């Protein structure tokens, strides 16, 4: 009996991108269903009753919510190909720590780079760069965050890379000037098939931001 895998998602979501990448890494065929977040579908409301948020992974009728939880789930259900988390408990803990750090820190400050003005925006930019620098020093001279192999922490962060040019444009700053190694890492990841399939073009995101601002009532 074939697996039925559905992903409720929204094309610019850096969180949805994580789950797309994980499924692609495992060569899992899935039914991608674009959601309208301003007119939520019955299936979204039913499958994520607590948060009503995307992404939602539905595997043989059962929902899994929260993107990093989905990535771990995918790794556990399809262990044979491209392991996403290390097998050593300490290395796993390190990966989860940094995945959690990315979840806690990156989105909030990143959002201020396009969603805020004046002092608030400047403070957001400053914090965002500090957080990226912390991640960059964690990456060091490694190819990926986990070392030789692409994995969980790379997946946690790479979706934001598709938004970098938009942050730079609307925030009027250069990420590459501050974090060149991270940009190089982003380019390396983008060459991976799973990432190339899952990330939208930066241009598309740049066009989307003004529309998003309107939706949120931001000038």
């Amino acid at each position, binding site marked *: 009996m074939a697996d039925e895998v559905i992903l409720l998602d929204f094309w610019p979501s850096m969180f949805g991108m994580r789950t797309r990448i994980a499924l692609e890494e495992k060569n899992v065929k899935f039914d991608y269903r674009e959601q309208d977040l301003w007119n939520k579908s019955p299936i979204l409301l039913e499958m994520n009753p*607590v948060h009503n948020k995307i992404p939602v992974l539905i*595997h043989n009728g*059962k929902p*899994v*919510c*929260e993107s990093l*939880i*989905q990535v*771990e*789930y995918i790794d*556990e*259900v399809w262990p044979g190909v491209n392991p996403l988390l290390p097998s050593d*408990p*300490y290395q*796993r*803990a*390190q990966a*989860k*720590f940094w995945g*959690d*750090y990315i979840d806690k820190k990156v989105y909030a400050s990143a959002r201020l780079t396009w969603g805020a003005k004046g002092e608030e925006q400047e403070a957001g930019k400053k914090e965002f760069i500090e957080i990226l620098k*912390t991640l960059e020093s964690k990456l060091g001279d490694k190819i990926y965050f986990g070392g030789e192999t692409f994995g969980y922490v790379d997946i946690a962060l790479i979706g934001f890379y598709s938004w970098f040019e938009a942050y730079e444009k609307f925030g009027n700053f250069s990420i590459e000037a501050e974090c060149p190694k991270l940009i190089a890492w982003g380019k390396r990841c983008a060459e991976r098939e799973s990432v190339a399939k899952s990330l939208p073009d930066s241009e598309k995101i740049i066009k989307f931001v003004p529309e998003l601002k309107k939706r949120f009532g931001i000038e």
Partner: protein
Amino acid sequence: MAERSDTEEVKLLGMWPSPFSRRIEIALTLKGVPYEFSEQDITNKSSLLLQLNPVYKMIPVLVHNGKPISESLVILEYIDDTWRNNPILPQDPCERATARFWAKLIDQQICVAAMKVVGKVGDERDAAVEATRDLLMFLEKELAGKDFFGGESLGFVDIVATLVAFWLMRTEDLLGVKVVPVELFPEIHRWVKNLLGNDVIKKCIPPEDEHLAYIRARMDKLNIKSA
């Protein structure tokens, strides 16, 4: 005769009244892992703490054979991966994902909403109570027909949810605000009784009198009226 250095060295940097610290003690005790507890003062952080958790500078930090792990949910999973007896997380991937989901809800939303109940007054407090109750309803439904979130025995979500049972619910007595009344949350109340019947829980939660005195002192310091 075995050398001391042959045995695992497990150290926990924590704080006796912290729910995040206590949950680690519960997990280690459940697994029968001996550990050394080091009480930390976060108002005057030790150089050891700053060295071992440079990112957040917070407790708990578990140190296993010299290697530090931070963030309580990460630590709990590390403990479960390392000492395989008395598993905390379920085996099935879907159940594991669900357990992780509830744990995240408790820490990122219920905890935050509950802190607003304590920290706010008037209408803002009422709104925080509503928000906390709405979230707790999900846990209430999850407990239906089960002794524990983990089923017949304690699991990951039970350990994380001790924050609700022994911190939120102890604070409400002091605040004079019934956030979790038994009429609305009979399953949660039943679950708390089950927890109190468990030896590991009894051993690892802060003793009630001292804990209430501590909370009362903190509320006084923050100028929060206690009942």
